[in-house]
């Protein structure tokens, strides 16, 4: 199945992945790389629901945050061995996201955004109120390191680097596979021509619930890894500023492209770090970037890289569709 070109690409990728921690040898650079890869996972998985499926799911950040807290609470309070808590995080988030999706998808459009937004804030309210178990506003500290055979990853940051890389690669391969599969195509069909898609036998709610649950898998793993790596779980993971940063990654990178949000995650994490000196003004810069992208480049930065995407994006966002529906990809 693997074409020769992609086989070579895979080898180059593996070589690059192994070499990367040696190239970025400073601990500051490695830290930034690890964080940007984790954000890249969250953003590109959000792209599955927000971009491909067109669901206004604002609970995605909560999936990351819950993954983070499940890892912290289960290892600190219930003595769950490390690694197993990652499994637990995926299971809990899958259940949570499934229930959320079934409830929220009874609604349409803006109502989905409002309810999922409220759910995220509910998580913050619960964490702040449950001081004993969730640590309240301060968060939980002392989340144990990941370790293999007694070797703690915290002793050598490169191990977290490799873990994040592995997760990002697995996530990206999965997302690309989902996006190009019949499942992914049915999501896009439901987004663009729901009535026609339904008439061709695509079950809308089932596909969308599955999309939301699927988008939570790698996101919760990234959240759990985040907790182990930083050693803390704080309510900041649900914060409005992190949501906005992740949202900007999806939009500036290019919705429904998978690669766009990943590249944007890396660039924007570095940018946010470089701009740390100007304090809160960096959030203003990021906000302005979102508005400008939506105004002048609705397909996101990735649409510049891929001419095909540009044509598709122009087709979706341009006025031609509403003026002349006959030129659209209409069913025959």
């Amino acid at each position, binding site marked *: 199945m693997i074409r020769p070109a992609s086989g070579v690409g895979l080898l180059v990728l593996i070589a690059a992945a192994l070499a990367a921690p040696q190239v970025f040898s400073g601990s500051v650079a490695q830290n930034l790389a690890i964080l940007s890869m984790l954000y890249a996972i969250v953003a590109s998985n959000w792209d599955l629901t927000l971009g491909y499926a*067109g669901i*206004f799911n604002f609970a995605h950040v909560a999936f990351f945050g819950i993954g983070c807290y499940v890892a912290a609470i289960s290892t600190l309070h219930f003595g769950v061995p490390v690694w197993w808590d990652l499994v637990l995080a995926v299971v809990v988030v899958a259940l949570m996201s499934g229930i959320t999706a079934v*409830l929220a998808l*009874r*609604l*349409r*459009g*803006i*109502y989905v*955004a*409002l*309810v999922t*937004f*409220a*759910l995220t*804030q*509910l998580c913050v*309210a*619960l964490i*702040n*109120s*449950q001081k004993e178990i969730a640590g309240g506003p301060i968060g939980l500290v002392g989340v144990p390191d990941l370790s293999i055979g007694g070797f703690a990853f915290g002793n050598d940051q490169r191990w977290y680097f490799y873990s994040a890389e592995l997760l990002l690669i697995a996530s990206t391969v999965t997302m690309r596979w989902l996006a190009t599969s019949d499942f992914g195509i049915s999501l896009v069909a439901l987004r663009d021509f729901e009535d026609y898609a339904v008439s061709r036998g695509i079950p809308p709610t089932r596909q969308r619930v599955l999309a939301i649950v699927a988008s939570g898998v790698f996101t919760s793993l990234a959240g759990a890894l985040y907790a182990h790596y930083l050693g803390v779980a704080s309510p900041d993971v649900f914060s*409005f*500023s992190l949501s*906005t940063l992740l*949202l*900007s990654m999806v*939009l500036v990178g290019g919705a429904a492209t998978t690669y766009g949000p990943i590249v944007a995650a890396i660039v924007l994490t570095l940018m946010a770090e470089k701009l740390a000196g100007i*304090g*809160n*003004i960096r*959030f*203003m810069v*990021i*906000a*302005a970037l*979102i*508005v400008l992208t*939506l*105004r002048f480049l*609705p397909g996101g930065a990735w649409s510049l890289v891929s001419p095909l995407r540009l044509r598709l994006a122009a087709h*979706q*966002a341009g*006025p031609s*569709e*509403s003026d002349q529906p006959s030129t659209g990809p209409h069913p025959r």
Partner: protein
Amino acid sequence: MSAIIVSGLVSGSLYALMASGLSLVWGALGVFNFAHGVLLMMAAYAAWWVSSSSGLGAGLAAGVVAAVVFSALAGALLYWVLVRPWLGKPDAELSVIMTTIAGAIFLENLVLEVFGGHYKELDQVVTGTVMLAGTTVQAQDLMAIFLAPALLGGVAALLTRSRTGLAVRAIAQNRDAARLLGINIERIYLVTFAVSAVLAGIAGITIAGLFSISPAMGNDPLLRAFVVVVFGGLGSLIGTIAGAYVIGMVEAVSSYYIGIYWTPVVLFLVLIAVLTVRPTGLMGRAP
């Protein structure tokens, strides 16, 4: 008991002011303004800056007037920059969610940069306390209870009596037909946004007198307004106002009997229960 009712009425009044603005904009423009909480916050800062001795020191009356004028202008500007360019595009609904979220982040951080994170105090528009049914009530609370129905009644009267109000409703019902009848849609959109911002601004001035002013002060009221509009139904002014008072009461009762920490959970459960039965809210129309 009467303390719970008063507290519920005060919250309900403030939520009604907030949420009706969201509902008006949704009805006329079909977009949702996530920067509505920031409009509330900026009005409070405008009132503080004009009235306080640390600012212009022009007194509270001038501060309130300035804040209302400022709100109208801010609402119009917000519409111009963050909403208008995307109206009529296929993805307008989602795009405007994003642009107004970005706008909210921008303005919240701008205010934080300009005024700093310290809490500010605004004088109450009316001071003192009143005995009411055996409970001591702040006069400002009482003002909120009477002000909100009066203002919203005024808005409702405008919607049914004035030409502009009728135009707003015509657009909400059928945009193209309204345009054909020669209604200047652009102007109506601008006015709707300005009115919605003024309602949020008045809520902001009232809240500023009851609590304190900070860059994040709009977030909680906005979130409650989300719950209210989903509960009552977007686009229906009556549904939204009724929803606001129900949510205010539920919150007051639950804070008293179940505890303040569990109130968000109770509110969310009420919301889910309503949506399971009526997915467009109590009186909402399908989007």
